[in-house]
């Protein structure tokens, strides 16, 4: 069968262009991160990694991910269930609302939280009077991260659950299954991959958020610095190697994210071809 663009010359040209551009725009930056991090040798790299501030930044970043991912997972599942399985006034609006974090510049996301929970904010005065600190402490960082990552799981699930329809679940209801059983036995197996993909995206963003977090973190070394903030501060300290050392951790995490995603997709296609 003849297909468009199958002539060897065209094919070679296009593949060549694609490879060159990919190498230039995607691979080279990745290589540069590790090259810069290892510029002064592996010993310096380890030394930079075991720096107390870097370790605390790793800890905080993990804490943020550990809280945001499950919370957004639960929320995303419920929201997707709501908008794909029921019709009610305002359904469309709810779906648009959930897109807001995509449209909001991260700096603005930080700003709105600061305006609300800061000492001069609406809730901030009360919180301050009760000695509850949200801004410039980890709860604030968690909150803005929740904000910027909340669409990911829902956005992955909604199109899929919409396409699948609710016939299977309705059948299960007529057989007398309880809500929980239906979700676990019928829905979950169908959406497992999308769910995992959503979790991966949420996690990547939660770990890497910079703009919003930088507004509410207060830059206290060893206390409210997440890894991306640590990268920026080390960079500002003329410590390029240190900055890229922390950056390399984030890049490593990014690569793991990509690998996890690739594996998921591979499994999905294998399942498809098997059936």
């Amino acid at each position, binding site marked *: 069968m003849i297909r468009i663009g199958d002539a060897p010359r065209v094919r070679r040209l296009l593949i060549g262009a694609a490879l060159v551009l990919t190498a230039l725009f995607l691979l080279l930056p990745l290589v540069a991160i590790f090259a810069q991090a290892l510029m002064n040798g592996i010993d310096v790299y380890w030394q930079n990694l075991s720096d107390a501030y870097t370790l605390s930044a790793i800890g905080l970043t993990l804490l943020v991910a550990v809280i945001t991912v499950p919370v957004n997972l639960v929320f995303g599942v419920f*929201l997707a269930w709501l908008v794909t399985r029921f019709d009610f006034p305002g359904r469309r609006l709810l779906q648009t609302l959930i897109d807001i974090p995509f449209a909001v510049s991260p700096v603005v996301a930080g700003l709105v939280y600061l*305006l609300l929970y800061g000492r001069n904010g609406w809730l901030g005065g009360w919180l301050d009077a009760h000695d509850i600190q949200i801004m410039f402490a980890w709860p604030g960082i968690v909150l803005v991260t929740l904000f910027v990552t909340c669409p990911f799981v829902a956005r992955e699930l909604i199109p899929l659950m919409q396409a699948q329809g609710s016939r299977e679940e309705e059948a299960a209801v007529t057989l007398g299954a309880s809500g929980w059983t239906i979700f676990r036995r019928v829905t979950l197996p169908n959406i497992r991959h999308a769910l995992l993909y959503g979790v991966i995206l949420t996690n990547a963003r939660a770990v890497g958020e910079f703009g919003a977090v930088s507004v509410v973190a207060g830059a206290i070394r060893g206390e409210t610095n997440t890894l991306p903030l640590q990268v920026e501060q080390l960079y500002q300290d003329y410590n390029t190697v240190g900055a890229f050392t922390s950056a390399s951790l984030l890049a490593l995490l990014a690569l793991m994210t990509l690998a996890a995603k690739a594996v998921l997709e591979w499994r999905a296609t294998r399942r498809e071809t098997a059936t």
Partner: protein
Amino acid sequence: MIAHALTWRRERRVLPGFGLSLGISLTFVSLILLLPLTSLVGQLSQLSWSQYWFLITDPRLLASYGVTLFGAAVAAIFNAAFGLLMAWVLVRYEFPGKRLVDALMDLPFALPTAVAGITLATLYSSNGWIGRLLEPLGISISYTWIGIALAMAFTSIPFVVRTVQPVLEDLPAEVDEAAMTLGASDSLAFRRVILPYLWPALVTGTGLAFVRSLGEFGAVIFIAGGKPYETEITSLMIFVKLQEYDYAGASAVASIVLATSLALLLAINLWQGRFIKRLHGGRG
């Protein structure tokens, strides 16, 4: 009509969990999304219309809209071309390392923007790996609009690739054959036959890339020169106003960015909806 809608709705609610999922969703949306956003509205309401107008039409700010829109447009156009190429190559051809290239396409979403920012700034500065090669040619990228567009393009690469790819995969083989048997050249066949199929996905992806670029901050900030009227992006203006304790001003500028992005997102959604309707409408 109404009665029909009501019964249909009741039918749909055979599934359990409406109350619970509605409760959780609304609580979350209210607390995490709406409540903070009301504080933005609160700040804005302290301004009179004329003050608001004065703030958002400041010449320096107007120039920053220009820089941001231009950078985002260049980035989006680049991504449209690059994304189309990548989608085509990844769907149509087999070559060694294809899986790797495919996986790499998502890198910009997985890599934190601040990391992307310092890396691009390092690579393209006049003593960086790439900047060094371009310097003798008289091309400087860092601290010029090219740098801004580059950072924006990098962070939004996946949009076009990932929207076009599935459409291209679903394209029936007969389409190709029909075009080729008519004796059309590759490029003509592509333009006349394939492109119309891809058009909606391409526009959606490019639009999303554009919206994302408008709000980008972390990656751009390291490579943009921040020179008034030339390399100052709107996100930076918001940041500057924040530093000046000018919350009302920051909110005003933020509201412009937010409104533009939301309007664009809505337009993309509508366009997509219309397209899908047309597609499904045809098949009944």
